[in-house]
């Protein structure tokens, strides 16, 4: 059974207020995944305070990095269940966990942060991990 909207809406707003687009249906997910060009960050948001309480501010901090993804999208695990299931279907070899964070470049999954690498870290540590990945995968190639 999905969580109460009263409970999850503030957690959703932590991301939508900084520019994330919610993917609420499988069709939303497919439309996002069909865009082949560019870079993207997908956050599997969740209610878990032990981990998600660090994930959301960690993502916020990471997005202050110079190199950052073009598109920001999120699904809410345990709430928007069909959209979450559809998003996970695009990388079925990776065990599902939430919160978790996926980075895409030209629609290819290039980096994944599972729940266990969020739950025992501070927001600053989560941000540092993501910034490093942004620099590695999203930084523009130097002009030749």
């Amino acid at each position: 059974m999905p969580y109460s909207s009263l409970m999850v809406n503030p957690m959703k707003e932590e991301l939508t207020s900084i520019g994330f687009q919610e993917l609420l249906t499988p069709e939303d997910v497919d439309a996002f995944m069909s865009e082949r060009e560019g870079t993207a960050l997908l956050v599997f948001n969740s209610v878990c305070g032990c981990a998600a309480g660090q994930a959301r501010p960690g993502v916020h901090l990471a997005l202050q990095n110079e190199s950052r993804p073009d598109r920001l999208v999120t699904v809410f695990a345990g709430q928007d269940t069909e959209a979450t299931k559809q998003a996970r279907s695009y990388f079925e070899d990776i065990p599902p966990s939430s919160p978790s964070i996926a980075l895409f470049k030209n629609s290819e999954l290039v980096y994944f942060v599972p729940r266990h690498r969020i739950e025992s870290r501070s927001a600053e540590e989560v941000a540092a991990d993501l910034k490093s990945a942004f620099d590695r995968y999203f930084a523009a190639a130097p002009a030749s």
Partner: protein
Amino acid sequence: MGTFHQDKGDLHGITVVVDTVGHEVYIGRCDEMTEERILLHDVDVHRDGEDGRSKDDYVERAARFGIWKKLEQFAIPTEAIASVRRLGDL
């Protein structure tokens, strides 16, 4: 903002690797650890040598990608535990 259960100890909600003195290693989300047992939720279990992987091999892969839940919950008695580590620290 989130849900917290501070009364259940430092490992509550954390994904831990529980190695045993036997052939099994368990990985799951810790509910609570007492003098008698550790209770895990969403538990993966691997038996040494299963599918050609040692316990260490299995834990190494889990540290990179996560775990596939095999059991809703499982309690391991203290006398069977060799070590408890955070998966995120490996």
